């Protein structure tokens, strides 16, 4: 590829990214629907969080389960600075928000440095517990600051909701990680993940790599936090509990550790999933709920058995058999559920979608993990090349069979 062509693709992708952000913004604000606007913005934030954690966890292999702490540091530090200087500084809102993002990023990066330090000495679960502990320490310290509102919360002065800025950040984060991976520096990160000692022997500066991963990951989370703080204009420590860290970690692994596109996909999906029952509301009787739960359990078991035992060379036949068995089972589960409804207690107790939406999330999570433990995309990146390769491989497989 010639230099001009590379430059061309670069410029094109930058233009496309910016166009995407503003297009999204125009689309969303055209809707005038507060809820959709909010979902789009939150999804952008979660994508940033999961991609940045993926850099630490998936790409560098440092087991960090305290990402909410960086998010929190970003939100609070940007908020505190904004409250102090926004009125006296000359910049208008969008330009100021970029500054604010940087402030959040810098403070979170410092936090990342502090957490990254122990990672030089600690490994695996010991590191995990330190990051978790760090998150709790930060939260408890903020909880005890009455000047920051304590448990009630902290109001942040300029309220600024910008979908385009949030998604721009997400895209910058994705681009940074992607370019890092494609560059020679990125190989160092992967080497540290695969084998620290071998990497060291090859001359990789393990210390530097780990700390850089923590700093960069934390900085993006902090920038996201700054935007989140200004978007909500009121934050409290409850927003940054360790459940948030677990959720983001889940996004990373579900998408496939190390896969950036996977993180994006899982970040958006996992965030939207519990919101769906708000949009499509339904009611379920107890009998139906129980039989569907059991049905899903059997479904997972059956599909695992298929994976282990059923090696039909004919692709079409195999697909049909698997799909048929699954649908049959699903229908059976529903029929059993309807029958169960005839038992008085089972039929009359109903739950609406709101009450089971987190159970749905948990079940989906378990099903995906049990059927595809490497995550949705495995270690692969989603790209058209990859799709083509997979298809070709399958064709080749058929031909040889």
């Amino acid at each position, binding site marked *: 590829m010639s230099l001009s062509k590379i430059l061309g693709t670069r410029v094109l992708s930058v233009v496309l990214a910016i166009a995407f952000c503003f297009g999204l913004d125009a689309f969303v604000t055209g809707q*005038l629907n507060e809820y959709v606007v909010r979902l789009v913005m939150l999804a952008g934030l979660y994508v940033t969080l999961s991609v940045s954690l993926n850099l630490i966890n998936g790409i560098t292999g440092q087991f960090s389960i305290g990402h909410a702490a960086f998010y929190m540091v970003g939100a609070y530090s940007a908020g505190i600075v904004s409250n102090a200087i926004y009125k006296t500084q000359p910049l208008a809102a969008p330009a100021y928000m970029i500054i604010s993002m940087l402030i959040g990023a810098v403070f979170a990066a410092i936090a990342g440095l502090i957490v990254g330090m122990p990672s030089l000495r600690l490994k695996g679960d010991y590191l995990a517990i330190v990051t978790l502990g760090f998150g709790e320490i930060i939260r408890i310290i903020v909880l005890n600051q009455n000047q920051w509102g*304590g*448990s009630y919360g902290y109001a942040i002065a300029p309220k600024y909701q910008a979908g385009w800025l949030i998604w721009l950040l997400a895209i910058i984060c994705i681009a940074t990680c992607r370019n890092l991976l494609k560059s020679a520096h990125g190989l160092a990160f992967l080497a540290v993940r695969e084998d620290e000692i071998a990497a060291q022997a090859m001359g990789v500066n393990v210390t530097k790599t780990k700390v850089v991963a923590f700093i960069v990951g934390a900085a993006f989370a902090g920038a996201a936090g700054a935007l989140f703080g200004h978007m909500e204009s009121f934050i409290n420590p409850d927003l940054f509990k360790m459940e948030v860290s677990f959720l983001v970690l889940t996004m990373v692994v579900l998408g496939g550790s190390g896969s950036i596109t996977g993180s994006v996909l899982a970040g958006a999906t996992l965030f939207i999933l519990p*919101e769906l029952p708000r949009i499509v509301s*339904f009611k379920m009787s107890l009998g139906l709920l129980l039989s569907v739960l059991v049905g899903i359990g059997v479904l997972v078991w059956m599909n695992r058995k298929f994976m282990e035992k059923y090696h039909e060379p004919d692709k079409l036949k195999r697909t049909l058999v698997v799909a048929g068995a699954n649908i049959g089972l699903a229908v059976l589960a529903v029929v059993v559920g309807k029958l169960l409804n005839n038992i008085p207690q089972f039929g009359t107790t109903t739950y609406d979608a709101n009450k089971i939406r987190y159970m749905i999330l948990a079940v989906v999570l378990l099903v995906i993990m049990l059927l595809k433990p490497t995550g949705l995309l495995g270690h692969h990146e989603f790209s058209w090349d990859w799709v083509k390769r997979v298809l070709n491989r399958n064709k080749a497989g058929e031909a040889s069979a």
Partner: protein
Amino acid sequence: MKNGLLQLAACALAVASMSMFAGCKDDAAGGNTTGTSTGTAGSGSEQSGDTIKIGLVVSQNGELRPWGVDCEAGAKLAEKQINDAGGIGGKKVELLIGDSNSKPEEGKSAAAKLASENVIGMIGEVSSGITKQIKTVALEKGIPLVAVGATNPEITQEGQGLISRVCYTDDLQGPVMAVFAYDKGLRKVAIMTDQKQPYSTGLSKTFAEKFKALGGQIVAEEFYQSGENQFSGQLTRVKSKNPDGIFMSGYFTEVGPMARQIRQLGMDKAVLMGGDGWDSSDLVSSGGDAIVGGYFCNHYNDAEDRKEVKDFLEAFKANNNGNLPGTTMGALGYDAAMVVFDSLKRLAAASKEINSKNLAEEIMATENYPGVSGSITLKGTHGDPAKRALVVEVQKTAFVFNKAYEASEVMAR
């Protein structure tokens, strides 16, 4: 394909077919409106069609669920009663429910979702932290919000005539208990604060301020976070200060075990006191003999001989398989919904247009509404009803009315 993508896809297919099959035959399945919004930002919603939509945000999931489901049941009871009586001006009211999952962020999402469905008024949350987030949506959209159990004083400040509540505030509750404690002859009081709950920190603060102003002494303040089970460390510190009374401003889930542990450490004399977070049928079970003889501040009392209370409890029982509300939020949720419906009735009677702006004005003009939790007046009060507060004594089988305080009388002290 050994990596499971096929199985995953098949599974998704199965679940999809499951939901379709279940959906098309299940008579309980309720369709939903798609949110096509017509209201412009800041002006609230217009009402069209033959139902009047009111939004309700409660915690149907998460740690606050016990309070959330009570509030929901209370509000639904109000909806049922209004609709059974013919609705409002010939129109039915419809309560749309959003789940906040006990999280501020999701509470805001739920409120935004409700706003996008053109509710003309919102009711919600039982917790101050989540209410604060819902408030920002209400202000942006110009939709009136009636908070249920958010007692933090800041909630109604800068409310632009939209934000009100049906409970009293910590500014009343704390001082009431301070005056009560002082009148009981207590002079050295220790405080146990739930650091995680804004409700508790606010209540402890107002209690301490008033109690000191009266001339009492706060000998210790110790902290815990809701979810803890063992408080012996904090309580030993309290014990070493020899308090006459202990003010526990948290929720009953922690207060009950704490009371037991207070007695286990040998503090038999200290009088236990608290706020409305104590109110639950489970308090005596978790607190045991230790909590008996304690006092707390409440909105109403089950045993009260008032028509509203009796009618409410009877109707609630009939509507909920014979169960009484587990916490005080049943009555408050009912009152909040009723205040909104009552305002709608007045709008309909005056044949004014039913929209958010008029509803907000009408809610703020509520005068002497006979609620279960006492008479509610929002006119000229910036959204904080001047309610009386009851102090009740915990006894083995019931909460017994001890003393009633009017706001004016407490503030004058």
